[in-house]
């Protein structure tokens, strides 16, 4: 064990310009467990920030993928790891705030030490080009008249639409799809009347004019569509939000936590990261650890009743 540590740390220490760091923590490579498979937006953006963090921390930051269980297998392994700060993970709201209401998972938010979050997903509501609805108001008006279907992959997208429906007195019927691509395809074919997804799936169809973006469901507008308002700007207090942040097992020593916090916040400011995030339709976000933790816990408490009401929560 000790030998391996030395072998791994030695070349890294030689490579880094800040030799002084080698004496302090961290002294060997850090592993980040990504909760989804390789090649997706979470994986790619985590690799991008890991590359930046590596330069700051002076040790290799290795990304491993542990997909499965709807994004719960990764956090589960993080929770079970030794809290020495060498094993971290990524998570979003799906694994910590949504899945616990639907699956039996052996962890809660209390099982983790929260670190900063660095990226937010964008959400948008769109209809196909042939649809009579030109604005979000027209879609809402139609849904007040009669049940209106929308396609999405699941929470939090669908929760946002339910919330909107409740606030304006409209009936939106959720039709779940296995992937964002399938949901967008169904909207293009008019099988569902609207779709609420992220930019990567929607942009090609939007840019070719087959799909019309009615509103951004996020806190801000999409940079590709600066003229399309957010739901909030339209007077509907609904924001669909999810982010990627780092977690560690509960009980990481305070000074190590501080090192990691500083490193990830600094890495999140790098323009190279913003570039990659932008390509995957995400927004760079500097969310300190305590804010990330608050957001996750608040979302967890909020999603419980919402999912139960939608008939999606686990029966107790």
């Amino acid at each position: 064990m000790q030998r391996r540590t030395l072998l791994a740390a030695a070349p890294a220490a030689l490579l880094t310009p800040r030799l002084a760091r080698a004496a302090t923590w961290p002294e060997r490579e850090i592993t980040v467990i990504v909760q989804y498979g390789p090649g997706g937006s979470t994986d790619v953006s985590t690799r991008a920030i890991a590359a930046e963090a590596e330069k700051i921390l002076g040790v290799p930051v290795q990304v491993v993928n542990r997909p499965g269980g709807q994004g719960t297998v990764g956090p589960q392994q993080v929770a079970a790891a030794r809290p020495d700060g060498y094993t971290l993970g990524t998570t979003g709201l799906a694994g910590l705030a949504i899945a616990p209401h639907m699956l039996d998972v052996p962890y809660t938010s209390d099982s983790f030490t929260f670190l900063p979050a660095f990226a937010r997903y964008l959400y948008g509501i769109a209809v196909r080009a042939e649809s009579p609805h030109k604005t979000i108001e027209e879609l809402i008006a139609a849904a007040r008249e009669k049940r209106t279907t929308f396609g999405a992959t699941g929470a939090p997208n669908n929760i946002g639409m339910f919330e909107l429906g409740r606030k304006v007195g409209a009936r939106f019927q959720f039709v779940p799809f296995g992937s964002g691509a399938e949901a967008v395809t169904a909207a293009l074919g008019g099988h569902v009347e609207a779709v609420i997804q992220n930019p990567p799936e929607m942009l090609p169809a939007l840019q070719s004019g087959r799909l019309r973006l009615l509103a951004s469901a996020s806190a801000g507008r999409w940079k590709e569509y600066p003229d399309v308002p957010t739901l909030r700007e339209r007077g509907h207090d609904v924001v669909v939000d999810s982010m990627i942040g780092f977690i560690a097992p509960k009980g990481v020593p305070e000074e190590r936590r501080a090192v990691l916090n500083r490193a990830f916040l600094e890495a999140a400011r790098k323009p190279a990261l913003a570039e990659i995030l932008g390509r995957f339709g995400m927004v760079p976000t500097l969310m300190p650890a305590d804010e990330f933790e608050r957001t996750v816990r608040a979302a967890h408490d909020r999603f419980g009743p919402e999912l139960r009401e939608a008939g999606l929560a686990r029966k107790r």
Partner: protein
Amino acid sequence: MTRTARWVALGGLAFALLGWQEAARLERWGWDGPGPGLVPQVLLVLIGLAALAVLAWPGDAAAEPEGGAAPHRNRTFLAYAGAMLGVALVLPHAGFILPMLVAVLLMLRLGEGARWSTAGLYAAGLTAGTVLLFGTLLGVPFPPGPVEHALSGLGLLRGG
């Protein structure tokens, strides 16, 4: 063959009953359409019926079962099955390399009656080959184990 077929049918019946315990907890009809329980419950009933049908018509009684009459008395078969199960059970605790070495050794020595030296050489060669091809060349992550740890320190395997 008919005997095995009847055993399978009985297994199918038991499976349907056990599965029902699990499926009965699922909602048959949700608030907005067929629920998660509908399909599994229908399937389990049908499995029960099909199993009864197989019990009644298990097929050609004269046909010899594939693989001979008594596999459980065949040394090679037992060695192969044991190696398979052993590797699968030990894998999460001891990684891939160590259990595989032992399994191949046993398959060749006990199952095939090869000499210890042949078995040992082949086990070492095969495992090394698998590690080099999958781990080193293709970068496939291996299940963590003591030998894997040592090799990832040498850069022959991805750490994990």
